């Protein structure tokens, strides 16, 4: 009995618990305490009163957020962009991984893989600069090309309609190398006997990919997509902010929850509404993860995240 009491455990695990202490303190401070800070969304925040001294104002912050007309727009944009990113990025990465695996010699493979990985290493600030370089109205490469062909230049930074395409392309471009390596690793793990068996059965290369490679990639795809779906209401702030910044002309097509929350907090200093939008985002995200995880669990217990 003695060895099983709580205090004895505490003594036994003393060093391990001490080793966990910094990380526990970190997440308590930077993750759990901010969760308690959700009360700000229900308060009329003023700096003198702080989080707990400010007066309550019920659901007013949420009412402002939903009545501003921004709520629907930013939620729709966030979700649609993420759905597009998940579909396009994964399809392209799987395609590139299969091609890299099946085609070419060692050197060709090395060089192309390095090239695909390059965009992953640079910051969104630099990507923003490159986009400006390409898309700028007066001197951008795209417009220089159009003028050279005798066509009308397009004012891309003033036209919301182009941006869904541009952002999807940029997201695919930046993540291509990283995702390709993930899938390449999964393909390399496929049992070669399966390929040999397919060969003996007379499968051509296209059949081989459809019948052996793709089905074997399925588990990896599920895990990566699951993780991505859980974040469907989170916008990649670095990307949207550096590509679009505070260009209000484009907001109808480019504003996502994260940029909206940032703007309300820093630019318009509307702390209450910003917090309310943040809570709305967290609750939506949590509900999505739980639903998706529950559905996957029902379908196949081993594939669920938790």
């Amino acid at each position, binding site marked *: 009995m003695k060895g099983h009491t709580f205090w004895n455990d505490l003594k036994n*695990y003393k060093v*391990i618990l001490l080793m966990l202490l*910094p990380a526990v303190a970190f997440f308590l401070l930077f993750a759990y305490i901010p969760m308690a800070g*959700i009360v700000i969304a229900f308060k009329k925040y003023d700096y003198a009163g702080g989080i707990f001294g400010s007066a309550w104002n019920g659901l007013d912050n949420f009412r402002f957020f939903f009545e501003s007309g921004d709520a629907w727009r930013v939620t729709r944009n966030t979700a649609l962009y993420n759905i597009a990113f998940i579909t396009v990025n994964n399809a392209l990465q799987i395609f*590139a991984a299969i091609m890299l695996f099946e085609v070419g010699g060692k050197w060709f493979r090395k060089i192309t893989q390095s090239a695909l990985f390059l*965009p992953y290493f640079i910051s969104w600030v630099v990507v923003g600069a490159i986009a400006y370089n390409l898309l700028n109205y007066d001197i951008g*490469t795209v417009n220089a090309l159009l003028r050279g062909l005798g066509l009308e230049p397009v004012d891309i930074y003033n036209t919301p309609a182009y941006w869904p395409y541009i952002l999807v392309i940029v997201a695919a471009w930046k993540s291509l*190398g990283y995702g390709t390596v993930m899938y390449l690793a999964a393909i390399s793990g496929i049992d070669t006997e399966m390929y040999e068996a397919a060969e003996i059965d007379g499968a051509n290369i296209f059949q081989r990919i459809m019948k052996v490679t793709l089905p074997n990639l399925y588990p990896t795809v599920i895990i990566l997509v699951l993780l991505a779906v859980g974040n469907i209401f989170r916008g990649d702030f670095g990307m949207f902010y550096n590509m679009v910044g505070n260009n209000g002309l484009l907001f109808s097509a480019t504003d996502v929850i994260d940029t909206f929350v940032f703007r309300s907090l820093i630019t318009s200093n509307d702390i209450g509404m*910003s917090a309310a939008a*943040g809570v709305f985002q967290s609750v939506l995200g949590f509900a999505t993860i739980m639903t998706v995880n529950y559905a996957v669990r029902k379908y196949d217990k081993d594939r669920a995240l938790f």
Partner: protein
Amino acid sequence: MKQLDRKIFSAIGYVSLILLAVLCIFPFILVVSSSLTEESKIITDGYQFIPTAFSTEAYSILFKYPQEMINAYLVTIGVTATGTLLGLFLTSMTAYALSRKDFKWRNKFSFFFFFTTLFSGGLVPWYLLIVNYLDMKDTPMALIVPMMLNVFYIIVMKSFMSSIPEAIVESAKIDGAGDFRIYVRLILPLSKPALATIGLFLALAYWNDWYNALLFISDENLMPLQYYLYKMLGNMDGMRKAMMGAGAVVTTAIPTESLKMAMTVVATGPILLAYPFVQRYFVQGLTIGAVKG
């Protein structure tokens, strides 16, 4: 006939891979060549793939008064080195504790960490905590501490350490080694591939970070490189002032467009030079992670 499908497939493969590779590299060449093109040529003909009028003026202006740029470099190097080392130490120590199979509460602690990826208080409480309660605004701490630990890295590290045979830990225990000693002397040396991978992830995140600076830094002496670049790109007047403040007598017009690109090149340089070597470790690390699932 068996060869025909192979040939068709290879043709598709080569063409599409070469196309994708070119699309990935092309923008970088454009930036470098624009930074080396004469300003007047950019104004009339736009940014160019191959400089038709070669000029290093942008770089000579940039390097004439490099104080601010050098300062930003030093901030970034300092933050990256400190953050990566601290982060790596804390991540591996936490992962070690969670990987110990004889630690009864490890699932409880794992969930404590994992839950923070499911639900969060959002930007506002986090921001107010750091600015109003921890007083980190305009301190190097604001650039280092918030990014130090990441649940995903802890999980990757933990799953690597779990694959180290339990017998090693047990025999060390019999020899009388304590937990911390086992972690430092045995587990860390055996975890080099995981440490290299997570270390690279952390270093890249710190090097490319501008978000924490955007939120927390207004002191110009504490601006990291990417944020400095962001500021300069968005504000050419600021750039002019920086040049003049550094003692430049601006007699001729500053070539803003090529200067923007030269700044981008200088701020990206080290990453572009290091990346072919570093990439290999990333690929190895990701491969290990992917196979483990």
